[in-house]
């Protein structure tokens, strides 16, 4: 590597010439290589949020139940009985393209650390995945590696993987998305933060040794991909879930004492970002002695150690009189433990190595003068209305095709590789309810967890798509009977330096914000992943679909009241919500007619809240015994999913709605649910009083789905069509 520090090197490190000027001004001299490395990672998009910060600030982040919103390692909400849920979602998109297994595995490891670093025992993992066209061999390789990686890590650490989502679209061919979410539980009064305090206090390094893994990972994830992406090999990080498991147990054991002043995982930009952020937040200085850092390889330089992204490491500020207690705990768990520095009153980060000062940077300007950009944003064009479309096939043929299509087919092949029961608290496993449900041990409390986003809606109309993603997450939680509490997000977009991409980003946040406010559903943590573009051989770039993935959490006071989506026996099937038959951007339009056109379904947040609040009440009072939200594929797909989940059939009635049958059955109008109740009349009257549209559309029984045209499809036949896709794809 070139060692002279100058503008050319700064640019190689991802800094612009204005940013480099700013560095020179702050330092008052030419920075050392290590110093330049620190600036470049701290000011990378990944660490500084320089393109997104202005817009993230517009999201609602507070509610009476929010204990810590964005800004900490993860969001914290009060779930009652003295407990807090701590959760966050994070992307590992670029690493997962380069090395799918390790990329996905270390993604899971990273998000776990964000959660247990705050004092929580992780109780659930979810993952939101977007892959390219299923027809390409590379996509299958990526799926295989990503699924194995998520399982390989999550299964080993013993945290159940309980949910997630998967979409396919050619726009992800060169840039898959791997967004991992972890949820943990802590006592509300035992939450650990990262702000360092106490001049002289020891700074302790625990976990795995430092190697040359992933140097400049943070800058890499802030750049678009070119043909050489696969050659960027030195940056591949390998995860060690076994060490992570020990780290979880050791940290939780230490957290039960009063030894910790502050704690922070070493994530992107490793030792640099953890030490800078801890000291910066606490308003103190920090001095590190790199000779004391546990090292895996000989001859590492200060630059390499400061920028290494070796996994499974944490930085802790301890009370000085508790150092030995802490050391004993980490020795018991056979993990490296080293005092590598102390806090100072200088307001600087000083890094020493072999008797030399390798870096000496004032912390305030490093944080405060970090660039923030108000990038030009082009307002997205409204999609043209969808012209009249007609069904080319019979209802039953279309249904069978849809339930077996890539975006709707069963994900059992995937979740059967994830341990979803470890911990013994999984009330609803994947596929059993609209959100996964996990009990809180020793209480009656439960959590409902989901991830949602419909990228094709966001592509057509980013604002309404952003709102829809939040609304769907809220609806999925509501459909189990849980009370939606808060959101974490993972905003995956293309290159923000392009006004049209920035425009998507701004509009999606605007939509999300509106929905979060209307639904009282604050954003408490999140992650932004930009530059998700692939340079094509001809020099042009292809951006992913705008994908603001929403992870959400709801709570049950009494988790035994939760309902699943499997059709209940001998019940009336009632449709909640208004149906206009919106086919724009629907799965039906894409899979049956091969068109991606029109506006996405309208999002009416008032109706969403009213309908959802009604449904939740009726679940909790025992009237509703099964519930499924209506999303991709519309009413008919939702009904078929209910039949497949329980094996109990249903006879559907012919709608006298004045809407064409394909639009009625496959339209993706929002704010709707299918529910099973005993007394349809009484229930519909109650709904009417609450201003909630409700109508009887079928009766359960037998083991066949009977369509209004009289055609019957057995649950078994539906299931065969539903389950064929993944195994066939992955065997090819």
């Amino acid at each position: 590597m070139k060692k002279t520090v100058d503008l050319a090197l700064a640019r190689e490190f991802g800094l612009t010439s204005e940013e480099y000027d700013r560095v020179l001004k702050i330092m008052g001299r030419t920075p050392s290589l290590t110093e330049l490395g620190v600036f470049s990672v701290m000011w990378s998009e990944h660490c500084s949020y320089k393109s997104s910060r202005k817009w993230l600030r517009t999201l609602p982040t507070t509610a009476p139940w929010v204990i810590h919103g964005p800004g900490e390692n993860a969001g914290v909400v009060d779930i009652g009985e003295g407990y807090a849920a701590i959760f966050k979602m994070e992307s590992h998109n670029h690493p997962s393209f380069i090395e799918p297994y390790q990329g996905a595995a270390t993604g899971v490891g990273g998000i776990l650390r964000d959660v247990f670093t705050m004092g929580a025992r992780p109780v659930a993992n979810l993952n939101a995945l977007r892959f390219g066209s299923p027809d390409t061999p590379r996509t299958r390789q990526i799926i295989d590696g990503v699924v194995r990686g998520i399982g390989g890590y999550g299964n080993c650490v013993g945290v159940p993987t309980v949910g997630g989502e998967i979409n396919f679209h050619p726009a992800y061919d060169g840039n898959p998305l791997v967004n991992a979410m972890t949820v943990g539980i802590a006592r509300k009064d035992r939450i650990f933060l990262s702000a360092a305090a106490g001049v002289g206090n020891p700074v302790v390094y625990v976990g795995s040794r430092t190697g040359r893994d992933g140097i400049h990972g943070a800058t890499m994830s802030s750049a678009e991909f070119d043909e050489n992406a696969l050659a960027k090999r030195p940056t591949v990080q390998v995860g060690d879930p076994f060490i992570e498991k020990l780290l979880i147990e050791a940290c939780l054991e230490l957290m039960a004492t009063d030894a910790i002043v502050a704690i922070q995982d070493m994530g992107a930009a490793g030792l640099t970002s953890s030490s800078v952020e801890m000291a910066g937040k606490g308003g103190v200085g920090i001095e590190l002695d790199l000779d004391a850092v546990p090292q895996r390889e000989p001859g590492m330089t200060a630059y390499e150690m400061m920028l290494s992204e070796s996994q499974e490491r944490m930085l802790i500020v301890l009370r000085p009189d508790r150092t030995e207690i802490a050391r004993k705990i980490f020795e018991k768990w056979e993990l490296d433990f080293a005092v590598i520095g102390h806090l100072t009153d200088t307001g600087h980060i000083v890094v020493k190595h072999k008797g030399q000062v390798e870096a000496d940077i004032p912390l305030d300007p490093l944080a405060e003068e970090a660039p923030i950009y108000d990038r030009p944003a082009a307002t997205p064009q409204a999609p043209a209305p969808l012209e009249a479309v007609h069904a080319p096939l019979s209802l039953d043929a279309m249904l069978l095709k849809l339930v077996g299509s890539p975006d709707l087919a069963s994900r059992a092949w995937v979740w059967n590789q994830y341990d979803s029961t470890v911990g013994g608290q999984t009330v609803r496993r994947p596929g059993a309810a609209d959100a996964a449900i996990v009990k809180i041990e020793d209480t009656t409390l439960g959590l409902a967890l989901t991830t949602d986003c419909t990228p094709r809606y966001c592509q057509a109309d980013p604002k309404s798509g952003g709102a829809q993603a939040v609304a769907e997450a809220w609806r999925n939680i509501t459909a189990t009977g849980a009370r939606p509490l808060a959101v974490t997000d993972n905003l995956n977009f293309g290159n923000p330096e392009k006004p049209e991409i920035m425009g998507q980003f701004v509009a999606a946040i605007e939509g999300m914000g509106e929905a979060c406010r209307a639904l009282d559903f604050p954003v408490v943590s999140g992650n932004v992943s930009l530059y998700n573009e692939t340079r094509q051989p001809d020099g042009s770039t292809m951006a992913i679909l705008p994908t603001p993935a929403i992870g959400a959490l709801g709570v049950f006071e009494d988790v035994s009241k939760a309902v699943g989506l499997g059709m209940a026996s001998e019940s009336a099937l009632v449709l909640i919500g208004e149906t206009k038959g919106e086919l724009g951007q629907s799965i039906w339009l894409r899979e049956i007619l091969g068109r991606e056109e029109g506006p996405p379904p309208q999002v009416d947040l008032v109706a969403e809240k009213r309908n959802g609040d009604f449904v939740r009440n009726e679940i909790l009072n025992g009237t509703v015994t099964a519930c499924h939200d209506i999303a991709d594929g519309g009413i008919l797909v939702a009904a078929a999913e209910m039949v497949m989940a329980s094996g109990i059939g249903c006879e559907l009635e012919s709608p006298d709605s004045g809407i064409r049958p394909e639009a009625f059955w496959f339209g993706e109008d929002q704010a709707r649910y299918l529910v099973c109740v005993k007394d349809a009349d009484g229930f519909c009257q109650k709904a009417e009083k609450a201003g909630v549209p409700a109508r009887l559309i079928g009766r359960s029984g037998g083991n066949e789905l009977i369509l209004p045209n009289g055609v019957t499809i057995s649950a078994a036949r539906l299931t065969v069509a539903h389950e064929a896709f993944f195994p066939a794809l992955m065997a090819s």
Partner: protein
Amino acid sequence: MKSAIVVFPGTNRERDMAIALKRVTGKAPTMLWHRDTDLPDVDLVVLPGGFSYGDYLRCGAMAAHSPIMAAIRAFAQKGGHILGVCNGFQILTETGMLPGALLRNANLRFLSQDCHLRVERNDTPFTHKWAKDAVFRTPLAHGDGNYTADSQTLEKLEGEGLVAFRYANAKGDVQADDAETNPNGSINSIAGILSENTRICGMMPHPEDLVDPLMGGEDGLPLFEGLVEAFVR
């Protein structure tokens, strides 16, 4: 019944097992650390599931050499009862306390799903709450559950009736070459085996994860109820 659960670095189903044992005994089992060298006065020692030492090298290989295993061997020699589930089963085969070995699943993937087990004999403390040939549902979650043994060992296991559980369909039919009912490819569909004196039982699936209707059923409960009845104290 007094019971203890051994925790190795990387064990992760000790809490599930503790919940199941507490459910039937009303008291929390003793947790033992792999470096302990003495066992407390107990009727049953459980080696739970997980990834001891990350499942590196071979599942259970490193845990088999833990200090506590000497005490567990001695406990077995004195006729103590031992249950090894999943990684615990793998550890028991690695120590030679149970015969055979567990290979990678036949489809080379981690499997996490429900399966059905047929109870092959009901005259042991582990199985006596079931009728012979009873079928029960239980989750499994492992990457290396493909039981194998050389022909001599297999003959002995089968001949002496030391197979405790076999993978089956919901009706109890066993079909070893069918990936639906024998998901990991185990020889003769073997899911759990017994030591000669029937006091050590190793099995791959997780009955401890199905002991509560809220979690989907109580199908695994008879194993634990049976143990409690066998050791009334």
